[in-house]
């Protein structure tokens, strides 16, 4: 799912033991292999391969590391499969005979796949298999080993990933191998990345001022945090060791230019994060914009409607697991209408049982809905338990678009931004273009008049409150993707929601939209400067002061209704 435009995380330590001792040797061996035998002939016999694989089940991680090195150096194409399985945690030792196998889960049983032949040799339950344990050090080593093996893979994507890992590692010992790969590479894009990787190595390894200047020249045009780190390290080294002043100056210039471009991207990132926070606020608040903004109910149970939506998402997912496990990817899509109906249904019931007796006494709705919110929280706690529930993210919402500049656009937030806009658009359309919307506006503007032209005001009230609650339920579906699904979920959003609605102007949908996004963006711009806590305090104080300037919010309703 991930689209890697750059290595997922920069900044590995250059002097990892694995690389220091092993990489040069390994690089030379692979180089020889590549040079001598383009087909990558296997040096291991089947028996040797099996023996080595068995040794992967060693106790100490140092021993495992040795074996990984030995196997990777061999260049056998089957090694990659074994190491990949190990990296993914799919390599097991069978308890019965201590044989190392690749385990593949098939329903409730694990198939044993032979490490040499790749054939299925048997199957068992999980209890009969011992996972071959790895830690972060081994994970790093495995990934690096795979990267070098994969530098010559026929698959472009695998090669691309390998180049990124090499770039990440920046080990000078890799340079000859990389050079070799550059000569064989035909894809111009990848070739450019390879040249860049070469330059990062050349900078550290370069002997003459000219070599260094050339490398700096290539690097200065890049805009990635890794390159900045490379250049910064070089500047430090250069100053410490009194390099040619021309080189130092050029390096400093390069850092400055990379830095300034990165700044712009960072600002872009802040805007994106602000919009993303804004979309979350918007989703949380938009239901309230109807129940509170349009109907005048100070709905303290709004947060609980969101929570009910989130729990509905959980329930739908559980239902999928029972009835249609294969279609689990659809559960979120199904949860949206279901959550709307469930929360909306609760809303209609609440309106009929409680709210309808309180029209004209808005402040008392606060009391009743507060009681209701306590009631609903406890109800959910009694039914589902107090602990968090797990809502699995579907594939299309996992991962991120990563730019090499360090900007990361996570899919779940992109979807939520899109989703919030669709929801608001939908509501606006319902209010504007449907008969129900017309009646709703009529009733809230002048109940008696609406009643006297034949609108069933009670019916419209119930549906309006249901609509607001249902939308809160939809928000719950989205929030289940980024927050806890717990009985307290709603409490975390209720205050922010009221702020947004009031800031935008009660009774104005577009005010809510603008309010949510501006609060989100301001918050995210302050956060890097002031920290998360102070940023929030500043936003609150700004809101208080803003209300002094515009006592009815961004978009004030005009006319007699305001004073009523």
């Amino acid at each position: 799912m991930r689209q890697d435009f750059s290595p997922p995380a920069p900044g590995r330590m250059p002097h990892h033991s694995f690389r220091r001792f092993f990489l040069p040797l390994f690089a030379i061996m692979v180089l020889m292999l590549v040079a001598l035998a383009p087909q990558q002939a296997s040096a291991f016999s089947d028996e040797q391969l099996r023996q080595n694989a068995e040794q992967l089940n060693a106790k100490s991680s140092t021993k495992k590391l040795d074996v990984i090195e030995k196997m990777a150096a061999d260049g056998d194409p089957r090694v990659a499969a074994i190491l990949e399985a190990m990296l993914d945690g799919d390599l097991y030792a069978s308890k019965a005979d201590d044989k190392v196998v690749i385990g593949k889960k098939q329903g409730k049983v694990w198939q044993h796949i032979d490490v040499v032949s790749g054939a299925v040799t048997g199957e068992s339950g999980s209890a009969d298999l011992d996972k071959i344990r790895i830690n972060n050090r081994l994970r790093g080593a495995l990934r690096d080993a795979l990267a070098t093996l994969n530098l010559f893979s026929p698959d472009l994507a695998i090669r691309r990933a390998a180049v990124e890992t090499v770039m990440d590692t920046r080990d000078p010992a890799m340079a000859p191998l990389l050079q070799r790969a550059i000569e064989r590479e035909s894809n111009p894009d990848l070739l450019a990345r390879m040249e860049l990787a070469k330059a990062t190595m050349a900078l550290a390894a370069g002997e003459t001022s000219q070599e260094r200047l050339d490398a700096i020249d290539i690097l200065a045009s890049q805009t990635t945090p890794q390159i900045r780190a490379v250049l910064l390290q070089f500047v430090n080294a250069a100053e410490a060791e009194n390099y040619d002043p021309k080189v130092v100056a050029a390096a400093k210039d390069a850092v400055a230019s990379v830095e300034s471009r990165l700044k712009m991207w960072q600002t872009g990132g802040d805007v994106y994060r602000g919009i993303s926070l804004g979309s979350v606020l918007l989703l949380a608040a938009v239901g309230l914009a109807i129940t509170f903004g349009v109907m005048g109910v100070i709905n303290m149970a709004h947060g609980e409607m969101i929570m009910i939506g989130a729990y509905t998402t959980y329930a739908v997912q559980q239902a999928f697991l029972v009835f249609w496990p294969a279609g689990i990817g659809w559960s979120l899509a199904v949860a949206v209408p279901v959550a709307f109906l469930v929360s909306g249904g609760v809303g209609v019931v609440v309106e009929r049982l409680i709210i309808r007796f309180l029209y004209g006494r808005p402040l008392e709705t606060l009391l009743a809905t507060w009681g209701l919110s306590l009631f609903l929280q406890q109800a959910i706690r009694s039914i589902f338990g107090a602990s968090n529930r797990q809502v699995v993210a579907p594939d299309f919402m996992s991962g991120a678009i990563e730019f090499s500049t360090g900007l990361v656009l996570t899919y779940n937030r992109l979807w939520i931004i899109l989703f919030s806009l669709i929801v608001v658009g939908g509501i606006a359309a319902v209010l504007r273009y449907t008969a129900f919307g017309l009646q709703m506006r009529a009733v809230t503007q002048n109940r008696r008049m609406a009643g006297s032209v034949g609108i069933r005001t009670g019916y419209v009230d119930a549906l309006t409150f249901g609509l607001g609650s249902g939308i809160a339920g939809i928000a719950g579906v989205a929030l289940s993707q980024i927050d806890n699904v717990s009985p307290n979920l709603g409490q975390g959003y209720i205050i922010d929601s009221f702020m947004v609605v009031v800031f935008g102007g009660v009774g104005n949908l577009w005010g809510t939209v603008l309010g949510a996004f501006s609060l989100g963006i301001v918050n995210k711009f302050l956060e890097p400067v002031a920290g998360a806590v102070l940023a929030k305090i500043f936003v609150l104080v700004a809101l208080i002061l803003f209300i002094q300037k515009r006592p009815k919010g961004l978009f004030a309703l005009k006319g007699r209704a305001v004073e009523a």
Partner: protein
Amino acid sequence: MNKTLQTIVGAGALAWSAMAMTPAQAADDTIKIGVLHSLSGTMAISETTLKDTVLMLVDDINKKGGLLGKKVEAVVVDPASDWPLFAEKARELLEKDKVAAVFGCWTSVSRKSVLPVFEEDNGLLFYPVQFEGEESSRNVFYTGAAPNQQAIPAVDYLMSEDGGSAKRFALLGTDYVYPRTTNKVLRAYLHSKGVADEDIMENYTPFGHSDWQSIVADVKTFASAGKKTAVVSTINGDANVPFYKELANQGIKAEDIPVVAFSVGEEELAGLDTTPLVGHLAAWNYFESVDTEANAAFIKKWHAYIGDDKRVTNDPMEATYIGFTMWAHAVEQAGTTDVDAVRQAMYGQKVPNLTGGVAVMNTNHYLSKPVLIGEVQDDGQFDTVWKTDGVVVGDSWSDYIPESAKLTADWTYPWVCGNCEKPKY
């Protein structure tokens, strides 16, 4: 007027009798213990499980014939994550219900809130959660981990070759006393290991922080400086799920930037899809995955009691188990539930850990326990990757905070003091 007055006086009298008379005369054949865990409000997520654990242990001990030939009765109250209410409920348990011991509290502030009450009424509190230390009360037994039983071994591991030889540390925490103290201890410790200030980043967020985009992005930038970077997280409860979701989505892999957490256990992971988080770490004294007979029996008992095979066990549950078992043994030994006698009997009390080895109650009221470091697995469990050789003695006053390094806690002769520089006698 008279009628009203009568009504009011009557109502007042009724309320009075309800208030003053409710202590059902404690039957002589039961020993009462108090359970002071929040069952509603923000902390209910974590604490409800501990209430159930205590009830399970009570159930268990009663099946075996009770204590001193009497049945044990648990008095459960709900302090509702409201700190003054904790103090009120503690007083009620001690003075109205006359409980022999109280098992409870999670947050430091709730413990601080009830502390004066326990000291005034000479009660006994068993506190089962990892915390910042810097306290030793005569009336509290701390069965959770102190910073030296959790944070320092974890950082040691990160700096070791197996842990990835980290050279740069981002300390992320919720803004309250536990993360602040832990990070302060860690900073001093890292200095002593030659890590410079520029390689340490500290960041604090409010409780329940749910938008981690900027901070995770900051960590990525911090980590791009070319040194192996690790994150030490003291982020509290609720905020963890959104934090890990953001980590996963921004593609921070454990082998690049490992995150070691002190407040994330099996219970917290249960609310998460852990597949993208494999390899991130946690340091505890207990993991459900540890393969021992005692642990298997405990898990089985828990599943049977709670009636749900999917419910996980976690470290504070083990701490509750150890505390309760020690208390029961001490009562048996002392032959009474009298607080002073039980306290004396507590010292040196040994209970086998669920993870192997033996936990010992020290005279500073802290436990000696083993420290485990586990990696998150894709099934929401931890896989132990490192373990101390023996047990680590809980340190009530950290050696890495100058004012605190001077102090000693020892409640036996000749010290008899929780925070003294020299013995009292």
